[in-house]
C-alpha cells in the first residue's frame, strides 16, 4: 500500500512543484503546465459561456471560431455529454438551432461506443489504407522535426508548439497536422496518435485514435487531405503570411485538390478516378 498523496497546497505553483517532483519522468518529458484549470467549478464556468447556436455552426471551422473548449472536462467525465447537450438545448427555442453542436457531441458518444466494441483493437488499422500505399510503407516513428516544431512550415510548427505548450488544438488544426504527418510525411497514424495522447488535455484513446484513422483512411472510405488555400481561409492567413515557404513558392500544400491527390496518392484507385470532390469537413 502506498502513502496518501498531498491534498493541501498554498497555491497552484505549489501544486505544480509537488507534481513535478512526484512525477519526474512526466516533467522531464514535457514540463509545461495547463492553461486551463481542472475541476468541476472551472467546467461549470466554461459551460455557462458556450454559444452552441448560430455562432457555433457558422464559425466552428475557423481557428478563432466559437468552439466550446469543453473537451478536457468531457474527456475526464467532469461534465457528461448528456448535461452539456441539455445545457445547449436550454439556449434554443428549437433543437434545430443547436443541432450542429449536438452532432459534434454525438461524435464523442459514437467513438466511445466503437471503443467499447473494439477494445484495444483501436490501435490496429480497422481497415486497409485507401491511399494506394500499404501500412508497411509508412514510417513507424514520429519525425524529430515535427515533434520539435522545426519543419520550417509556419502552420505545422505552430500547431506542434501549441500542442506541447497548451495541450489543446482546434479540431481543424488536428486534422491538418494529422493529414500532414500521414499523407505528406508518410508516417503511420499510430505514431501521431501516441504523440497527441502525451500532450492533449482531452487525450482520449477512442476520439483520438479513431479520428487519426479517419484522416488516414483506415476507418473511412478515403483519405482526408487539405490544401493551402483552405488552411489560409480558416486561419485568416496568419500562418501563410509568416511562412518563408509560401513566399518562396515551396509550400507543399499549394495546389488544387486534384493536383494534390495525384501527387499524394498516385496509386490510389479513388485518386485515379476523374477529379474527386474535395473531402468535405465533418
Amino acid at each position, binding site marked *: *500500500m*502506498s*502513502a*496518501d*498523496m498531498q*491534498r493541501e497546497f498554498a497555491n497552484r505553483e505549489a*501544486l*505544480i512543484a509537488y*507534481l*513535478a517532483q*512526484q*512525477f519526474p*519522468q*512526466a*516533467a522531464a*518529458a*514535457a*514540463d*509545461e*503546465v*495547463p492553461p486551463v*484549470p*481542472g*475541476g*468541476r467549478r*472551472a467546467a461549470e464556468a466554461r459551460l455557462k459561456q458556450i454559444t452552441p447556436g448560430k455562432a457555433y455552426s457558422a464559425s466552428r471551422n475557423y481557428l478563432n471560431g466559437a468552439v466550446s473548449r469543453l473537451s478536457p472536462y468531457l474527456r*475526464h*467525465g*467532469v*461534465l*457528461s*455529454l*448528456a*448535461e452539456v*447537450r*441539455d445545457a445547449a*438545448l436550454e439556449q434554443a427555442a428549437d*433543437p*434545430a438551432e443547436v*443541432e450542429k453542436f*449536438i*452532432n459534434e*457531441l*454525438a461524435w464523442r*458518444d*459514437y467513438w*466511445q*461506443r466503437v*471503443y*467499447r466494441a473494439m*477494445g484495444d483493437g483501436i490501435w490496429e488499422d480497422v481497415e486497409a489504407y485507401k491511399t494506394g500505399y500499404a501500412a508497411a510503407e509508412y514510417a513507424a516513428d514520429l519525425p524529430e522535426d515535427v515533434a520539435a516544431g522545426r519543419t520550417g512550415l509556419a502552420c505545422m510548427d505552430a500547431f506542434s508548439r501549441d500542442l506541447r505548450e497548451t*495541450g489543446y488544438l482546434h479540431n481543424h488544426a488536428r486534422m491538418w497536422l494529422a493529414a500532414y504527418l500521414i499523407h505528406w510525411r508518410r508516417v503511420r497514424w499510430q505514431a501521431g496518435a*501516441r504523440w497527441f*495522447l*502525451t500532450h492533449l*488535455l482531452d487525450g482520449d*484513446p*477512442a476520439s483520438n485514435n479513431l479520428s487519426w484513422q479517419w484522416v488516414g483512411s483506415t476507418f*473511412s472510405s478515403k483519405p482526408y487531405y487539405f490544401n493551402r488555400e483552405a488552411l489560409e481561409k480558416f486561419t485568416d492567413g496568419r500562418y501563410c503570411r509568416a511562412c518563408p515557404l509560401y513566399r518562396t513558392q515551396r509550400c507543399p500544400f499549394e495546389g488544387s485538390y486534384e493536383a494534390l491527390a495525384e501527387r499524394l496518392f498516385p496509386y490510389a484507385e479513388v485518386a485515379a478516378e476523374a477529379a474527386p470532390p474535395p473531402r468535405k469537413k*465533418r
Partner: protein
Amino acid sequence: MQTILWIHGDNLSPQNPVFQAAPGAPAIFVWDEALLRDWHISLKRIVFMYECLLELPVTIRRGEVAREVVAFAHEHAARRILTADSPAPLHRRLCRQMSQHMPSGSRLEILHETSFVDVPGNIDLKRFSRYWQSVKKRALNP
C-alpha cells in the same frame, strides 16, 4: 455493507453516480504508474487531472491500481466496491483483477451515468452517419 468507491480518470465529477449511490463512503483514486509511463503522459495532463481530484472527497495514491484499491477496501473493512463504468478495456481488466483479489463474499458493482442517448443493442457502428441517422431524433429531444 461497508462500501468504498473507486474513482478513475474517466469520471472525475462530484456528480459521479458512485458518489450519489453511497454518499460519504471512503473513496480512492490511484495514479496508474504503468499507464503514465507507457503513454508518456505529460505533466500538464497530470496537473489538470489533479485539480479535478482536489475538488472530490477522495484519497489519492499511486502504484498498481487493483492492488491499491483492494488494500484500501481492506483498510476500511469494506466488502463492496463501487465504480463508474468506462469503455476502456483497461477498466474491465482492473475490475477483473480486483474481483479476484477481494475476500469471498465481496462484490464489485459498476454504475452507469445517464447516457447521451439510448440506442438499440444492434446499432450499426460501421460509420458515424449511420449511427447519427438512428439516434438523431432522440439526441435532439431527450
